[in-house]
């Protein structure tokens, strides 16, 4: 990637936006056309290279771009279902895809015309993702894939999936992986709802039976899938838990509101629990503010993993306290009917749902245990556990 073109600053970008809006009146242009044109003008994700939806401009100007388009009531996408595409597939395709792949996938991904999902986790490979078993076997100029993936949100609506497979079981596990783009409409791709303890089926299981994938849909070299997957995962952790929240924003605000509104629920221990959570929510919020300032200053620290870890713990404790605070009302649930929500909703519905949904926060997107390992080893430099699984061939590992 070329270095950011120094000529782009806020005022230069503002001019470009103004010109674009003059040429494409938000009020009269077809939304799809508008979005495609915005992509082609490099005003989609401006830090991406020219031709890939960007201008090679500094990343921190993006927020201003989005604000300017929003202020002009420009057509936009519903972001929820696009999160995996925008946050994970796109940076991976950008870094590891060849020109044809970038040209084919990035624009409809960004405009929302094509939805993406992530085919990584398996029943036997959760925290130990590199131990995955889905096999891809060469077949002419393509591959035949067999296996099972889990925790796949949006899969039932997705056009493509980013897929990690095992192509060589005879080498240690990290070395035998290959990364593909999987057409979710291909024969042999079977998506089934995976119901969670909330009653909802937010996720899916995806069964892959003799799915043919052309070699042109391979991202990165054969056997280099782990390196490609790390790009995806790095972007996943940054994308979770980094959002700006006001004081008493999020789950803590629901708890404090209940406290203020219902004096009959107050106890000394309830007060202490709430105030200690209030304090932790406030310090977490300040830490995220500081992280955002670091990132804006181009010095992102490793605090991203910390933010995800803290969000999970806090959301779990707050929703647990909130459920007990309302006593009798906490005995009641709103609805066990199995829905198929497109995205996770941590703050919606009743206290029972919020409590149950929060259990997933410390599992999805990297368990809290794995995040602690990452912090301990990569940030603090503590020695790794003795490893038994990095030198033996994958097929010989106990499982």
């Amino acid at each position, binding site marked *: 990637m070329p270095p950011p073109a120094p000529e782009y600053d806020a005022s230069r970008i503002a001019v470009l936006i103004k010109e674009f809006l003059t040429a494409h009146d938000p009020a009269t242009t077809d939304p799809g056309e508008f979005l495609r044109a915005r992509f082609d003008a490099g005003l989609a994700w401006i830090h991406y290279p020219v031709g890939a939806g960007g201008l090679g401009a500094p990343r921190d100007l993006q927020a201003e771009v989005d604000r300017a388009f929003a202020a002009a009531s420009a057509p936009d996408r519903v972001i929820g279902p696009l999160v995996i595409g925008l946050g994970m597939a796109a940076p991976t395709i950008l870094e590891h895809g060849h020109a044809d792949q970038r040209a084919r996938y990035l624009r409809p991904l960004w405009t929302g015309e094509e939805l993406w999902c992530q085919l990584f*986790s398996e*029943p036997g*490979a*959760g*925290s*130990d993702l590199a*131990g995955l078993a889905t096999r891809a076997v060469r077949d002419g100029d393509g591959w035949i894939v067999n296996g099972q993936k*889990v*925790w796949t949100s949006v899969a039932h609506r997705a056009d493509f999936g980013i897929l990690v497979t095992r192509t060589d079981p005879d080498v240690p596990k990290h070395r035998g992986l290959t990364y593909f783009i999987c057409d979710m409409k291909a024969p042999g791709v079977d998506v089934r709802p*995976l*119901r*969670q*303890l909330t*009653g909802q089926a937010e996720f899916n299981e995806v069964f892959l039976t003799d799915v043919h994938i052309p070699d042109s849909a391979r991202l990165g070299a054969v056997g280099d899938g782990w390196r490609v997957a790390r790009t995806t995962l790095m972007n996943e952790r940054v994308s979770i838990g980094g959002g700006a929240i006001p004081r008493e924003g999020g789950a803590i605000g629901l708890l404090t509101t209940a406290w203020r509104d219902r*004096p*009959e*629920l*107050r*106890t*000394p*221990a*309830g007060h202490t*629990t709430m105030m200690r959570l209030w304090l932790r929510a406030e310090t977490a919020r300040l830490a995220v503010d500081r992280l955002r300032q670091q990132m804006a200053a181009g010095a992102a620290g490793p605090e991203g993993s910390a933010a995800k870890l803290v969000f999970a713990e806090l959301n*779990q404790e707050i929703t*647990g306290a909130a*459920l*007990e605070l309302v*006593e*009798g009302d*906490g*005995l*009641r*649930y*709103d*609805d*066990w*009917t199995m829905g198929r929500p497109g995205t996770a909703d941590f703050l919606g519905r009743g206290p*029972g749902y919020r*409590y*149950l949904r929060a*259990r*997933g926060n*410390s*599992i*999805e997107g990297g*368990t*809290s*245990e794995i995040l*602690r*390992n990452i912090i301990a080893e990569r940030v603090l430099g503590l020695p790794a*556990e003795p*490893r*038994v*699984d990095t030198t*033996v061939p994958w097929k010989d*590992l*106990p*499982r």
Partner: protein
Amino acid sequence: MTDLLYSEIENELRGEVRGMLADRAPWKQVLENAQEGRTPYDTDLWRVLAIEMGLAGLIVPESLGGSGASLREAAVVCEELGRFVAPVPFLGSAVVATATLLAAAGDDPAGPGAELLTALAAGDRTAALVVPFSTLPFSTPPAATASGSAGAGPYPVFSAVGGALTGSARNVVDAIGADVLLVPAADGLYAVPADGAGVTRDPVVSLDITRPITDITFDGAAGTLLAAGARGAEAIRAGVGAGAALLASEQLGIAEACLEQTVAYLKERYQFGRPIGSFQGLKHRAADLWVSITQARAAARHAAVCVATGDPDADAATAVAQAHGSLVAVRAAEENVQMHGGIGFTWENPAHLYLKRAKATAIGFGTPDRHLLALSELFHLPAAG
């Protein structure tokens, strides 16, 4: 010092109940029964437990057709029912309602309470005490005292005009299938046929999918006075007190089952080429849980013995057992989900049945926060301000 060990009789009873539940109430069956839109009760299971094994009348005197055991033995049954999250109305009918009736009937073998007790002991009928499941088990509930809340009392009291009862109560446990409702009224404790005129039972969507709760409304329903005035209130206190104390034993069973499931999974699940139970980050948490559970067992035993024997320490023992039991059951259930990872977050794994049960029991008969407040008042450790 109370006897905190299990007697041989209790161990035998436990073995029989556990064997039966393992056979007739595997978790897949429990989950199947608990699908939405259904009442989760397993009536066949209840018939076996209540009638064949005689658990319905466990604490009823032999003179009334019961087994003449005490709440101590019933606590062991609660442990096992918790261990299986078994969908039967033992707590509501055979503990709370029965203990209420025993206290109300006193020594009168010919009163209406005695007749009802005989029917309950035989397993012919079940009963429920019409108070919210969240009722704190102390006669002058600190909640009402401290907050000066509208209700004033620990539970709603129905109006009674010439034996016709009017009023409502929310979140009544084990009432949806009950034949008889025991109702706190201004002038005493009444029995009301659940299918009588003026009785409305609205099923509630319960957080705990294996234990139904119900909103109940009476509009001039006809009732029979079981115990007048303060004796009625005392009987309710006894019933709720028994339920609260024994809920701690249920929580013990929940926590034990969760830890067992966790440990089994930690041994069988391999990641990074090792059983995940060999990672200290997980094993230390399992060890801490085990330690908490040994304490929960001692506290639950102490509470059960105290309510069984009318020990003056019963209120404190119950508050201690319920506060600690709630914390331990919830933590064990949450850790069970977490240490199972993704699979523990699915509907098709038993972990959530325990999580929902545990969290509901933490609210049942008072939250830990309420119990701590009660203890601080009992032991003259006043809150600030």
